């Protein structure tokens, strides 16, 4: 299949030494590498819309990874943050005719406010309880949105998030052209990627890892664990909401499924596939997951069964995920 050979293309023909050097380079220059790979992504997918999905879900997984991989807390409610980002951006466009560049920050803000609230409740708990509370609160968001038909479109989803043309710096960009749309969203995503890397490099990023490694010790060192976690959850929500807002612009509709708990599970799978706590892993995971989904759905409607099986095998034999295992191989 065409997409299979494309998936193998970056590795094909490279000797282990050269491949090792590539992995090392990507790990060292993670922002540059992520942006470079995403820049050629439309040519590594069978069609452009798939590239947009990979971009959006890669950004979503990146945001999710902050709380899951870096802070070590499994949130099962990120669909609410992603979905509210989508609705928060889509509603101003569809219902109030607000331009996209104003609606996008609104989407991020709505997700941010939701993560302040959800985070405030959830950070008090640990482990499975944290997962359950985030799940419960995200379901509250799901059903509220489902019921509020006049604003959200309810079961049918939000329609009419039309951004046909973007005028920027004198450029007249036709968003109906999928390739143009990809690069517009990619440019926005690149800013988020650079910002995210900056946060990981910040003192706060170090504190997050310290808390994941040893909460008690971090506390004795003078770190306010609860507040640090809360801030991490909020930041994670902002990035997830940003991805959701891009998704709304991409699809021109916001399906109610964006808020469904299955969407929380998907981002978890993407992150685990790519490698939790790795920067580049989010995008590797998104690429593999969405490409697989695209390939398998052609063959069978039971694509979840195939992906589920693969997922179990990966978790059993490569718990670090694809990118995480490669990193371990390069840096034992």
């Amino acid at each position: 299949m065409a997409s299979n050979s494309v998936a193998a293309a970056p590795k094909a023909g490279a000797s282990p030494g050269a491949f090792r050097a590539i992995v090392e380079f990507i790990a060292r220059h993670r922002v540059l590498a992520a942006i470079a790979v995403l820049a050629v992504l439309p040519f590594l997918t069978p069609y452009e819309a798939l590239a947009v999905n990979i971009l959006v879900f890669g950004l979503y997984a990146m945001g999710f990874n902050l709380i899951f991989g870096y802070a070590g807390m499994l949130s099962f409610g990120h669909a609410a943050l992603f979905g509210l980002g989508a609705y928060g951006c889509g509603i101003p466009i569809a219902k109030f005719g607000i331009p996209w560049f104003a609606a996008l920050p609104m989407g991020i803000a709505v997700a941010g406010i939701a993560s302040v609230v959800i985070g405030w409740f959830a950070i008090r708990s640990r482990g499975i309880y944290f997962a359950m509370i985030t799940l419960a609160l995200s379901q509250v968001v799901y059903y509220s949105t489902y019921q509020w038909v006049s604003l959200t479109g309810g079961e049918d989803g939000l329609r009419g998030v039309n951004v046909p043309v973007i005028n920027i710096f004198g450029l007249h960009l036709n968003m109906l052209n999928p390739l143009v749309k990809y690069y517009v969203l990619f440019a926005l995503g690149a800013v988020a990627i650079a910002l995210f890397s900056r946060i990981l490099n910040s003192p706060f990023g170090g504190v997050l890892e310290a808390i994941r490694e040893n909460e008690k010790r971090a506390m004795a060192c003078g770190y306010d664990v609860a507040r640090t976690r809360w801030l991490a959850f909020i930041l994670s929500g902002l990035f997830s909401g940003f991805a959701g807002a891009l998704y709304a612009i991409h699809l021109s509709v916001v399906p109610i499924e964006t808020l469904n708990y299955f969407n929380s599970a998907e981002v978890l799978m993407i992150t685990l596939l790519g490698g939790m706590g790795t920067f580049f892993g989010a995008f590797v995971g998104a690429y593999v997951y969405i490409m697989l989904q695209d390939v398998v759905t052609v063959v069978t409607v039971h694509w979840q069964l195939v992906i589920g099986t693969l997922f179990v095998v990966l978790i059993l034999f490569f718990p670090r995920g694809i990118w995480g295992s490669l990193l371990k191989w390069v840096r034992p």
Partner: protein
Amino acid sequence: MNPAAHAAAQMKPPTTPIMAVDGVTKRFGGFTALNNVTTSFHAGSLTSIIGPNGAGKSTFFNVLSGQFPPTMGKVFLDGADITGTPQHRLAHMGIAKSFQITNLFPKLSVHENVRIAAQALRSRFGLWQPRATLKLDETVEALLLRVGLQDRRHESVDTLAHGQQRCLEIAVALACEPRVLLLDEPTAGMSPEEAKDMMDLILKLNAERTVILVEHRMKLVMGISDRIVVLHHGTLLAEGTADDIRGHDEVRRVYLGQSV
């Protein structure tokens, strides 16, 4: 000086206590681990808390370090009530502690362990400046030199020997520049030679700050402590200089069979 003021001055201890506990009791369910303990620690002193197993030493340590609040009674720092203050706040008020069971950041390097501890004084929620711009390397190197780990800086914690991990534990505690250093059995699991080196190190550290340490090996602390507090069954059995404690009948009875 009038007689009343003179009398007040006489009653005042030679230095103001930097830390004190007043009537501290800690119960776990029906079990009273600590019963009405009152004592104080003077600035710059080295106090050892000793007692046989189950005497309530660790409970007392955890109350002092803010790990949990006492059921009754109060804890003071510089005369201010700090009972129930969260641990991370205590760290900024100048109380640092080491744990009885080695408690470090296992996957981080030796250097990074100390660096992240030192960073707490500088930036806790900074999202923008890269960590490297905090320029903590000099501080970290000085601390590693202090505990003799300068050659292991790039190694990960799990590759260190037990004694070295204990030393790193001290360096991490020192990184927040504490005025009061609380050490919970710093020599736990150490060979006699390592334990002696550790005591020498503690004595050096005491030159700049107050040290309160918990130890169940009595002999180790006799020579270096300014003051010794003996706990037994959760109550304060005796306190005083090493000589006072050696001559104390009750202490002898508790440590029956051991030469004090």
